[in-house]
């Protein structure tokens, strides 16, 4: 099972990189022009991410270096340990439903600080990829058609966010063989 999943991870990106241009050409797309146009947008996107990165890196840097992180993790240790969640990913779990750019910043910081192939780094990677910005989608989508009574949509979205944190922990521990 794990070997099979690992094969999927290894092949997914190369196969897509080969498949997409072939598919595009077959459908009559001018693939090189399309690529350049999209790539230009990618550059703008990267520039737009910079403020998010700096704001989050600085806030997290102050929180950690100042000693706030150690205190918080110390207080919550009994709860976190029983769930197997490392305290370091706590800010990511809190910010993920609130701000897409903010969450990306935290994931980037954790991956940088702890190393991409560490437990925290892998967990942050999976958590970042597995959910979306619940509050943003809710306010934006419902707001666009003037819905005020959102009923159980927020509760369902947050339940999914919580579930994704727990499943990320379980999947990463199972897949990479952490105790």
């Amino acid at each position, binding site marked *: 099972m794990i070997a099979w999943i690992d094969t999927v991870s290894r092949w997914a990106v190369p196969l897509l990189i080969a498949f*997409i241009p072939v598919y595009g050409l077959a459908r009559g797309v001018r693939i090189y022009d399309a690529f350049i146009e999209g*790539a230009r947008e990618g550059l703008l996107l990267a520039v737009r991410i910079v403020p998010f990165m700096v704001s989050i890196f600085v806030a997290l840097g102050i929180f950690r270096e100042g000693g706030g992180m150690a205190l918080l993790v110390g207080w919550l240790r009994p709860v976190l340990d029983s769930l197997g969640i490392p305290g370091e990913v706590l800010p990511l779990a809190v910010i993920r439903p609130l701000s897409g750019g903010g969450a990306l910043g935290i994931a980037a910081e954790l991956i940088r600080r702890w190393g*991409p192939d560490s437990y925290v780094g892998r967990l942050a*990677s999976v958590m970042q990829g597995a959910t979306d910005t619940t509050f943003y*989608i809710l306010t934006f989508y419902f707001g666009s058609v003037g819905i005020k009574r959102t009923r159980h949509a927020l509760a369902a*979205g947050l*339940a999914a966010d919580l579930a994704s944190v727990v499943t990320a922990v379980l999947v990463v521990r199972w897949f990479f063989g952490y105790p």
Partner: protein
Amino acid sequence: MIDLVWLLLILGGVAAAAAEGRIAAVTEAVMTSAQLGVETVLGFVGIMVFWLGLSRIAEEAGLIQALARVMAPIFRPIFPSIPRDHPALGAILMNLSANMLGLGHAATPFGLKAMQELQKLNDTPDRATDAMCTFLALNTSSVTLIPATVIALRASAQSANPTEIVAPTLVATCISSAVALAADYLFRRLGRRFG
């Protein structure tokens, strides 16, 4: 909300440093962290640019539509309140497909279109319908086939195997989507009983 969390992080750090008598650590953290933030973006600009170039080809080739067609039979039973040939389902499928392919900017217009179409089926215009709640729950737990940004981040941080998280992410995201659907169903039933 994000304002509060951001402020708490900064104040928490400053207060803890002050209490422990090493306030200089705060200033140093600001300098190094700001620099690290910019360096991180620079580190993955290249992959980002390449991936969005490739994504544009996929978009123009109609890959979103193709994926939406494949998924239609799976998603029709999840939205029983939408009439069979109503455009709402098409817009929902396009939105979910674009999200799966990691095309966030393409997903949003389809999402807004889906909400407009769903609103046409709504008798109480300020109150969300069952289908809207289900759509939002699915959308917030979005299934991503290739988490390109995360791969880029990992690669720029010198990971030995940047794509090793692709399949674990897929497994986690499928489970969280299933939980989203289950929670949506459960809360809807509870709402009927008590609301």
